[in-house]
């Protein structure tokens, strides 16, 4: 994955930066989802994390959820398939 910033590569553009990017304040549902996901991360891995890392994780999760909004907003028809499908073992290719 490249990381040119302003061209910034995926990885290099921490999702948390998106949260500081002058975007509108998140909806209450987004904040609630961020809180819920962070709570689950901390329940699973909290003992490994410093206070600063926990704080940073909140920003990452909030950014992830912000990125998900336009993805979730696209309406799909019932039959629209995913790009991942079952391929049969032994299938002749």
């Amino acid at each position, binding site marked *: *994955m*490249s*990381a*040119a*910033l*302003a*061209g*910034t*590569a*995926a*990885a*290099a*553009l*921490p*999702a*948390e*930066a*998106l949260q*500081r*990017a*002058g*975007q509108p304040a998140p909806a209450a549902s987004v904040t609630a989802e961020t809180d819920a*996901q962070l709570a*689950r*991360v901390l329940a*699973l*891995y909290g003992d*490994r*994390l410093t206070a600063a*890392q926990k704080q*940073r*994780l909140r920003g*990452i*999760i909030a950014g*992830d959820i912000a*990125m*998900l909004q*336009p*993805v*979730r907003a*696209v309406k*799909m028809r019932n039959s*629209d*398939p*995913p*790009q*991942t499908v079952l*391929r049969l073992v032994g299938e002749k*290719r």
Partner: protein
Amino acid sequence: MIGEATLFLPIRELGARMRAKEFTPLELTQAYLERSRRLGPELNAYVTLTTERALRQAQQATEELAAGHDRGPLHGIPYAAKDLLAVAGYPTTWGAKPYADQRFDYDATVITRLDQAGAILIGKAAMIELAGGLGYSGPYASLTGPCHNPWNTKYWTCGSSSGSGAIVSAGLAAFALGSDTRGSIICPSTWCGINGMRPSFGRVSRHGVMTIAWTMDKIGPMGHSADCLGLILAVIAGHDPQDWDSLPQAQAGFTPAAPRRALRVGRVTNVYPEARPELHQAVDRALAVLRAQGAEVEDVEFPQGPYEEASLLVIRIEAESAYQELIATGRCALLEDPLGQINGYASSQFLATDYIQLQRLRLELARRYEPLFERFDVLAAPGQSSTASLIRPPEAERRGPEAGRMARGRGGRGPRRPARLDSLQPDGISSLCGFPAVTVPGGLAVNRLPIGVQFIARALNDELPLAAARLLQAHSDWHQNHPPAPYGPA
């Protein structure tokens, strides 16, 4: 004695000189190895030099060519491979401390194919740890430290195929292999002033290659000309039953070919709105060359959609699964980059419904390009949104882009402001949809760093961006620019 300028020649020219007996593959390999030993450490370009293997292969190539056994254009040509490609007998570190001592007892399929073509592996190229699979903030996120750009060593090569970019740019090998999940060949090639190609998804085997994201990872060539890229792709492309996503041979195989009619080029106008004007002007200059050679050029816009978001999210989710062991055990704490140390924990919380939605959306987003590819053979855009970035002190880099490396508005001259996600970044679009892309040098910016021009085509039309780039290079000389000495020819 092989002169320095020879080490910057394209593959076809090196082969012609070898066959004219100006030098042997062994002499050429020794020259690249000597230059790599001398300059490689200054650039942090290599993880490992495979000297013994290289000299053995070079001796064999020398004997074979002398005996009239010619394996084709890559026979006797030295190259480097990104250190996520397995090579038996040598470490394969994935650029990351947790895997610093990792070894495989087999070769990646692409290494085997290049062996069979007579190419000579001289080293494993440095890279960003895990190719950025768990996220990173900048150039220090590597087992071998920041990779320095041969055009100006205060600047970065970009990632994640950092070493591959530096090696080709500085004439340390004739070509290199990189990997590209979302821009990791296109960006370092552009910033290092060389040619790079992300082939169509499924065309080149990934057997023996570290995985970031199964539905996004590609292996591709980096070299001194578009012609070189085609020669390399012709060897490494093809069906491999050991890669579950490998296309059938009829689609995966590749032979360079000229288009049967004048190229139709769409000049993308809604791309990189924040880029400095000189980056867009480089595209216009390149397209003027193509137009003079008969190409039809029209303005066009990328279709709207959450391409970049979907690209980043698919990678995040698949990488969490690929590096599950690293995350579950907490060994991700051994990574250099503070972001990479914790990003996997956040990724573990994505919902299955979101992943399925992303994979359904990909089909819809790819379909939005069909009308464009009915009208155009290739879409042209700047190689990246900027020239190479400065390597800042480690602490500033590790705080991430929000700490100061912010986008500038109004063509790069406006006030600093926080970066925003650009949904229509070409790397995100073509990676998400499996489109092939080629970046080629397009001149130098006012800061004397390289600018790139990229061509994108419909999936499995890999010959078209290569044809556009070859036509451009037949009638221009930007690809013959090299870094200043000592990293360029004296």
